[in-house]
């Protein structure tokens, strides 16, 4: 039990060749061959640590000194998945203290938050520790997300912990907080979607939809140029187009935005989808679209979806190819 893992310490770093505990190990150089390519000019310490690591790895030695050497190798290159893999093998063989190991990997993760291996290692550990790990893992991802609120790995880890180990209680509150800080944070909207659809304490999408539509429409009204809530709104009615079309709040929101800014691409695009799904346009909506079209010298279109699409072709020139294609898919 309890072999130490990190060996952080502030004491002077001793190269493996001068460590008594490794005196019997013959370092194994990398088999790069006589004419290597993409050959890295390794620094002396890197080469030495890796030569000793290779020797113990080749021997399959599952010992405390092997564990310490993997820590050295990881500090030098946390992207070496072979070293992490071997470290897990050794940890299991030694029945090591998992909390201590979590402390070790957390330190590496903090300075390498976009590294696949550290997060995978954390997931492996958290799975072994079980539900007890949920709170501390949520604290940790919060800390990482406070530095970069869109860190993909941190979000994936957080989602995995929620679904595998729990800790949903304050997650919606956390989403609210992040969206208050930055309503353009699409990762937070994505997390909100997970919470609303999957949290065991909220009752699922059907129970949450109504209040979520209000929340989202409000966010759109504050900033109609924020794409995230528009996409989220669509997500709230995923696989249920009839309900989407029937919800007046949504077509009203499009109309309200367009009355202020008739070239709002997100509103036009959403409206186009609604029309395609069978929305029967109100007289007011028809009037608005016709007014938009009349501002253009071209003649208007009888089909209102085609009319919206042609407006998009003009006011969203970056996507002109997309809208031109889209128009061919409309039956006119």
């Amino acid at each position: 039990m309890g072999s130490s893992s990190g060996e952080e310490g502030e004491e002077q770093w001793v190269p493996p060749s001068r460590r008594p505990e490794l005196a019997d190990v013959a370092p194994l150089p990398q088999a790069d061959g006589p004419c290597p390519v993409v050959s890295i000019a390794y620094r002396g310490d890197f080469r030495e640590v890796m030569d000793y690591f290779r020797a113990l790895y080749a021997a399959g030695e599952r010992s405390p000194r092997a564990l310490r050497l993997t820590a050295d190798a990881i500090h030098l290159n946390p992207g070496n998945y072979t070293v992490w893999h071997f470290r897990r093998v050794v940890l299991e063989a030694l029945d090591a203290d998992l909390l201590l190991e979590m402390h070790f990997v957390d330190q590496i993760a903090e300075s390498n938050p976009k590294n696949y291996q550290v997060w995978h290692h954390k997931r492996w550990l958290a799975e072994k520790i079980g539900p007890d790990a949920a709170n501390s893992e949520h604290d940790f991802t919060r800390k990482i997300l406070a530095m970069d609120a869109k860190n993909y790995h941190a979000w994936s880890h957080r989602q995995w912990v929620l679904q595998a180990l729990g800790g949903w209680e304050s997650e919606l509150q956390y989403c609210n907080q992040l969206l208050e800080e930055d309503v353009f944070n699409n990762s937070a909207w994505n997390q909100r979607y997970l919470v609303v659809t999957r949290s065991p304490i909220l009752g699922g999408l059907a129970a949450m939809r109504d209040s979520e539509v209000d929340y989202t429409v409000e966010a759109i009204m504050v900033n109609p140029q924020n794409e995230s809530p528009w996409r989220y709104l669509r997500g709230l009615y995923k696989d249920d187009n009839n309900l989407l079309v029937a919800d007046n709040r949504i077509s009203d929101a499009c109309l309200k935005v367009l009355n202020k800014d008739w070239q709002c691409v997100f509103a036009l695009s959403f409206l186009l989808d609604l029309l395609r799904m069978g929305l029967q346009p109100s007289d007011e909506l028809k009037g608005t679209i016709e007014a938009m079209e009349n501002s253009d010298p071209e003649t208007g279109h009888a089909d209102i979806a085609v009319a919206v699409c042609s407006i998009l072709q003009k006011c969203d020139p970056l996507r002109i190819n997309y809208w031109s294609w889209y128009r061919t898919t409309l039956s006119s």
Partner: protein
Amino acid sequence: MVRLSLRSSRPHGDTARSRGAQRSGGPPASAAPMDSSSQPQPQSPAAGGDPSEDGAAAELPRLTVTQVEQMKVEARVADIYRVLFDAAPNAKSVMLELWRDQHVEYLMKGLRHLAPSFHVLDANRPWLCYWMVHGLALLDETLDDDLENDIVDFLSRCQDKHGGYGGGPGQLPHLATSYAAVNTLVTIGSERALSSIKRDNLYKFMLLMKDKSGAFRMHDGGEIDVRACYTAISVASLVNILDDELAKGVGNYIASCQTYEGGIAGEPSAEAHGGYTFCGLAAMVLLNEVEKLDLPSLIGWVAFRQGVECGFQGRTNKLVDGCYSFWQGAAIALAQKLMAGSDEQSKQSQPSKLSSVDDSCGTSSSGLASEKSSVVDYAKIGFDFMKQSNQIGPLFHNIALQQYILLCAQVPEGGLRDKPGKNRDHYHSCYCLSGLSVSQYSAMTGSVSCPLPQHMLGPYSNLLEQIHPLYNVVLEKYEEAYEFFSSE
């Protein structure tokens, strides 16, 4: 030269939308994406409102981190484009040149020697080979025989005796580095290179990496995600070892990663992301299971990832990055081919899923989605895909993308980068060039055999080699490898 005329193509003038940074009710901006006159002022983050409403500014919310970062990038990019718009015609032509010699020199140099700082990529050396060799192949630069042989020897040293390639000699085999190694060997294309791949062992390795869900894990005990699925399926398809056993369940896993936004995430419930969207879509094509994805919503999501900077972002409300020129650009180019002649399907099923493909089997001309018989001929899917010509033009702005790559991603000393202000690297060089190739060839429709000058930005000498977008290897090299592995 081809003149980018986004500026004058806007009959309504006002649409320079700042992604995530638009001031509501602000004054109409005057011109094209990135016209400098329409730029918000990052210097005054506290007052994000309409300058004409100074009195109300205090009530407006402060700008968020996303908005401020976005404005900084837009301002930098606008400075670059302003120089282009104001330049004299022959100066413009020079500005839009692809700096071939410099890129070749940068990539060639890395193939032999890399500085000590590259130790962080010590477990990615086959990737380094691929980024450089593929970049050079796109530039139509041939390697001398000694160098080619040395690369083949090196990759053989990365090949595990039980199958698959690791990140360096003696490292654990890994699916991503196997993809990089195999793509490099296919690009080299010699008999020696292709026959160095131990296909039987590779197949056994892949079976071992398969999770009970059907998805793949990267290495023994490694992470499961869409990247692992793509690299496995791409390699298996390329060397002709893909079969039902390997394919089983992968498509369902990938489909479960498509999010409410329309793009594909790394794993179920995560955020839609350009890299995973390419990986997921390409794998689905190779598996003949595209109909399990909601293609219209995927296309809509990708189309909206191209922003006012003219390049692609990886996720909604994130910053532009040159590498997504490939990930997003190729994803939408794949979708473009899948849409070929399938407007009928699209009409029937939009905006819900393209699930009616089965109904329309008889008339479908997409070829791939049709005939969902019990036995799928995996060997021919990738080959047939390229035999079909495009029936429709690009679904993204191919000229604008070339503008971003040529003006914002190129580094004068050679190599390409994420965005202005960042350093070049081999990864971005590879994927910016791959994206440039995709955008140059994306407007080829019908029986046209090479891109027309009006579909290219800058001199025609900018034209790169064409790639096979399912694998991201140069098409000619793919065809040679296809021949080779078909007879194996």
